[in-house]
């Protein structure tokens, strides 16, 4: 197996792994991946739900009901595809602030999601101590303990090391952005994972921006994936708006990891449809033209919808019904979350230390 895939730029030609980015739309794509039409419709619905929910939290933010939102819009195929290519019962998902679609894919309910955004009782990640979707939801094996960019990557290594030490066959996936790849800890995590052939997937959602800082001010290369060569494992570039491409790449990486062959770096090229967060104003640094073009071109939902329609798996009526269903769910969740109380101050000192600790 060669250790260097999809290297672009650097004077070398673009290469895609056969079967991943190189596959063009054909009636066989999902079958080749072992996905039934039903499964695909289920996945599509999760993406629809994530998008609907995402749009709702922006509304809630603008109404002053959600303090902050970082959006997954534009990243849904990358997130849902990668999460569902793994084993939700034994793998571990180290998400980051933009991972709402990972959470929805794995089964976090709209109500739970909205409770986190509104910091209400019943929020399952942190007891409303943290930003939305931060903390850990171990029932779904989701870990997102801080807002500190790239600080989860060495932890993900550690979790993978624990799997290896116990000879379990769990795989760890760690999600991060292009921005995070500049952090020293990203290097340290990848290097260690390479040395110890850890069962880990480094999943980079490259949306070309770290808040406002464009890629060419972040790195002198085109593809983060090329760095995998410096760590002795494969780096793969994949079209992150193409669900099936993402599922295949992630499935391959997981198989590799489970077989003891070590890490893979997957770089999903995506677009960030919204400003960095609800506190950001992207017009300060992105032209109108760029924003419009990007939204038209790389919509993961639109792409999957077209594929499903083409394949005759989805009809426009079904599609409408799905959207209506998602909206109904989200409406119900909104009502519930709005009515839920804030945590009681009596919880303030809970879980500070292990029981039995003397003093603070």
């Amino acid at each position, binding site marked *: 197996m060669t250790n260097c895939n999809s290297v672009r730029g650097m004077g070398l030609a673009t290469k895609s792994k056969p079967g991943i980015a190189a596959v063009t739309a054909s009636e066989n794509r999902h079958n080749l991946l072992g996905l039934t039409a039903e499964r695909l419709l289920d996945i599509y619905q999760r993406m629809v739900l994530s998008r609907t929910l995402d749009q709702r939290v922006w509304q809630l933010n603008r109404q002053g009901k959600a*303090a*902050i939102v970082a959006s997954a819009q534009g990243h849904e195929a990358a997130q849902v595809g990668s999460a569902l290519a793994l084993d939700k019962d034994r793998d571990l998902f180290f998400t980051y602030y933009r991972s709402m679609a990972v959470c929805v894919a794995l089964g976090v309910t709209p109500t739970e999601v909205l409770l986190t955004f509104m*910091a*209400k009782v019943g929020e399952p990640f*942190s*007891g*409303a*101590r*943290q*930003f939305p979707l*931060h903390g850990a939801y171990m029932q779904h094996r989701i870990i997102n303990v*801080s*807002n*500190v*960019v*790239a600080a989860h990557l060495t932890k993900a290594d550690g979790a993978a090391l624990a799997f290896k030490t116990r000879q379990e066959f769990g795989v760890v996936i760690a999600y991060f952005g292009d*921005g*995070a790849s*500049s*952090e*020293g*800890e990203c290097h340290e995590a990848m290097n260690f994972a390479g040395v110890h052939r850890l069962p880990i997937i480094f999943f980079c959602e490259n949306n070309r921006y*770290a*808040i*406002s*800082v464009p890629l060419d*001010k*972040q*790195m002198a290369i085109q593809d983060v994936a090329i760095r995998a060569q410096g760590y002795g494992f494969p780096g793969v570039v994949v079209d992150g708006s193409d669900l099936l491409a993402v599922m295949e790449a992630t499935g391959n990486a997981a198989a590799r990891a489970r077989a003891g062959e070590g890490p893979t770096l997957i770089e999903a090229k995506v677009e960030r449809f919204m400003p960095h967060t609800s*506190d*950001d104003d992207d017009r*300060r*640094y992105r032209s109108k033209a760029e924003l419009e073009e990007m939204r038209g071109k790389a919509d993961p939902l639109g792409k999957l919808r077209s594929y499903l329609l083409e394949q005759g798996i989805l009809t426009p009526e079904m599609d409408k019904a799905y959207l209506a269903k998602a909206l109904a769910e989200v409406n119900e969740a909104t009502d519930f979350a709005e009515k839920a109380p*804030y*945590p*009681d*101050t009596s*919880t*303030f*000192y809970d879980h*500070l230390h292990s029981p039995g600790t003397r003093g*603070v």
Partner: protein
Amino acid sequence: MPVMNVVQAVRQAMHEEMKRDPRVIILGEDIGKRGGVFLATEGFLEEFGEGRVIDAPLAEAAIAGIAVGAAMNGLRPIAEIEFTDFIWPTVNQLVGEAPRIRYGTNGALTVPMVVRAPYGGGVRGGLYHSQSAEAFFAHTPGLKVVCPATPYDAKGLLKAAIRDDDPVMFFEHKRTYRLVRGEVPEDEYVIPIGQAEVKRKGEHITLVTYGLMLHYSLEAANTLAQEGKSVEVVDLRTVRPLDKETILASVTKTGRVLIVHEDNKTGGIGAEVAAIIAEEAFQYLDAPIMRLCGPDVPAMPFAPTLEAEFMPSPQKIAAALKKLAAY
């Protein structure tokens, strides 16, 4: 005199210094086209160009280390850390390296740089956009650490920091950015690092504080005044070096001390202030030295109820003052 808020004062200080001294450069995340997440560098890229206003990759250790190296080689960098919560990767450079360079090279090299970092809570920032870090840096010989509370002080102290020949940590409380407005003279002025200021004169109790808590403390002092107790409010402004003279002069007069800060109590700035007083003004004390600080939990939770539980407030400060007055 023009009236402005703290972030405007910060911006003006940098703007004036960049115009005055071509050695001043700024580097940090999103400080270019975006003008900084708090707009402290709005328009700088256009005015001073890419050579002096550097949108850095997302790598705080590098932002700090590059500033140190540039300072060693003749520039006067201002490094911006987007939120204090993300300052930890700089500790290797800012605690381990920068403060030891003058001493460790026997004066051959100096590190004239400033690190600006927005800090503090009460802004629904949750565990990772609310932290205070001044105490960590204030324990480090060779560093200067500034925590201004007003637009006037922010501007005068930031200018002093930029002109200082040593590394200066400059912590700006996020909640003061837009909330706190005040007069800022048009004429050039600089406030020396290391001078506290008595922000309110009083006789009965000394209240030592800094940052956002200054404003809450002044409110609480007003409450006490209505009950006939006059509180002297000392604004440290610089938390390293501490202005012992001003602290001790006030305590010598009042004999009672309350120290207020938002940062966690244990090992905070208040501990050092209390220790200095207990060592050097013991014979003047009429009551225990009290501290009202952020509780010892890992920064403040996101939920508004829990955030309020964390934050010292004018009410909590007034209650502590009353207790102390009654001792």
